């Protein structure tokens, strides 16, 4: 039995050819490198992906566009509802999927997830010098109403979420990402609401494509990504 296993392993390595390792199941990376357009599914999930009035913005579309360029091809963006995009990726109708996924996504069985390219925490921030209350119950906390998970987290604290208004007035207590609170001039309190590890997805079975994406993402400047996210938030 053992010699059989060894034979299979050696056979696989030989078949793989160590120079070209790992390989894709359907040679997607090879095709993209040869110039085939990269089909990118996107779904609105600010600030990671922002789709508004036909314009696509945000951290992840920018990253994918750059990655496609580095492979020598162009990214073509296709928008749609999240479920349809996941299904399309699984059926190889798309090459990449960006929709503000985290590594805790319930779709993980149908997606090949990248390594987290950024880890962000959400906190409640207060104005510097202000002592945070011992209990958040009944407190009015400003939240971007489009970020539903954040609204839910605020409600879990039995606080009252107040929609963020666009007129730029400073909110005294606000929930958001660490970097967001800091850039808005607030001080994050010690209560952590959540930790999110942001990921993207490629066609499952395409290990070479995934490794290429991971290598590209690893080389990115994290602070730059946070700045980019901040831009999308404003």
């Amino acid at each position: 039995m053992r010699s059989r296993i060894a034979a299979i392993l050696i056979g696989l390595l030989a078949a793989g050819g160590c120079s070209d390792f790992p390989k894709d199941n359907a040679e997607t990376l090879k095709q993209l490198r040869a110039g085939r357009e990269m089909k990118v599914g996107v779904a609105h999930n600010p600030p990671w992906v922002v789709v508004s009035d036909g314009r696509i913005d945000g951290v992840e579309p920018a990253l994918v566009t750059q990655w496609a360029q580095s492979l020598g091809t162009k990214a073509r963006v296709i928008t749609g509802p999240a479920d349809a995009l996941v299904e399309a990726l699984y059926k190889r109708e798309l090459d990449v999927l960006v929709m503000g996924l985290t590594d805790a996504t319930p779709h993980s069985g149908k997606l090949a997830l990248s390594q987290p390219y950024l880890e962000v925490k959400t906190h409640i921030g207060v104005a510097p010098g202000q002592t945070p209350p011992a209990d958040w119950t009944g407190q009015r906390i400003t939240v971007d109403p489009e970020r539903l998970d954040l609204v839910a987290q605020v409600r879990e604290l039995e606080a009252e979420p107040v929609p963020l208004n666009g007129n730029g007035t400073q909110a005294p207590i606000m929930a958001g990402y660490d970097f967001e609170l800091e850039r808005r001039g607030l001080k994050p309190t010690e209560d952590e609401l959540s930790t999110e590890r942001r990921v993207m997805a490629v066609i499952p079975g395409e290990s070479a494509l995934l490794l290429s994406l991971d290598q590209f993402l690893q080389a990115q400047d994290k602070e730059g990504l946070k700045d980019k996210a901040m831009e999308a938030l404003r």
Partner: protein
Amino acid sequence: MRPIENFEFPEDKQALFKRAQRLEVITVFYIASAAVALYVTMGSSQAMRASFFEDVISIIPAIVFLICSRIALWPPNRNFPYGYHGAVSIGYLISSVALVAMGLFLLIESASKFLSGERTTIGGMHIFGETIWAGWPMLAAIAYTGIPSVILGHMKLKLAPKIHDKILYADANMMKADWMAEGATAIGVLGTGVGYWWLDPLAAGIIALDILKDGFSNLGVVTADLMERRPQKTDRSGYETLPEDLRRRVEALDWVKEAEVRLRESGHIVLGEVYVVPSRTDNLPERVASAIDDAKGMNWRLHDVTISVVPRLNDDASPAPDGQS
């Protein structure tokens, strides 16, 4: 009730038994450390969770050996006149069930993975500021956890027949199941690397069937043992020759015309009866007593025999001489 004599391994076997205990302690620590490491790092990964459950199952025979083999050596008493040797069979039963559970678990895992069409993809992993293919560290981890199983399993497989310990034998099978499952994972990782994602569930499925086969054959043996089938060799290479040896030895005595034996295994030891048709009846009690001592001295496993003196052997009730029928 009159208990049987206290059993102790002969000196040379005692050293082997100690060695087996040491091996099992090492096994428990080694599997436990791997399980803790997996538990800490598993997060939401299904594959890691499966490995963790696999470890929890595979530690069972080692723990059972350490407990049951010790209980088996407790001295017999009025309430347990035959001693505690049956603990070995009970431990063997638990270990066999664990082996079957392991096989079923892996089979269901790989089948559901295959049917759900979940395609394994292995991308990059960040180590020391570099992004390398995550398959390499996975293979290193597999080698780290799999190679000790190969070594431990081999040592146990050689040791088990020497001290006639079937729990140890089942555990050697479990170690084999362990490293074969690791091997399947390695094939899966390399298969994914060359673009054949389906090799992962396929390899796991084939190996699950092999483990299941081992589990059921152990379960069959332990069931037969509990029903007191004639003593079988621990490595299953055939029946023990001890009953026939004993019969010949008794028949060779000058006062014995014919003899027949009935032996059963109880853990490490063998107990039973000898039916003797005497050719002379002078000094019969002394002759019987010395024959019993002689029988016990012929093999360390033969711990207690009773000799019944009968006028003739009952041919109708006895099966063929080798009992195969």
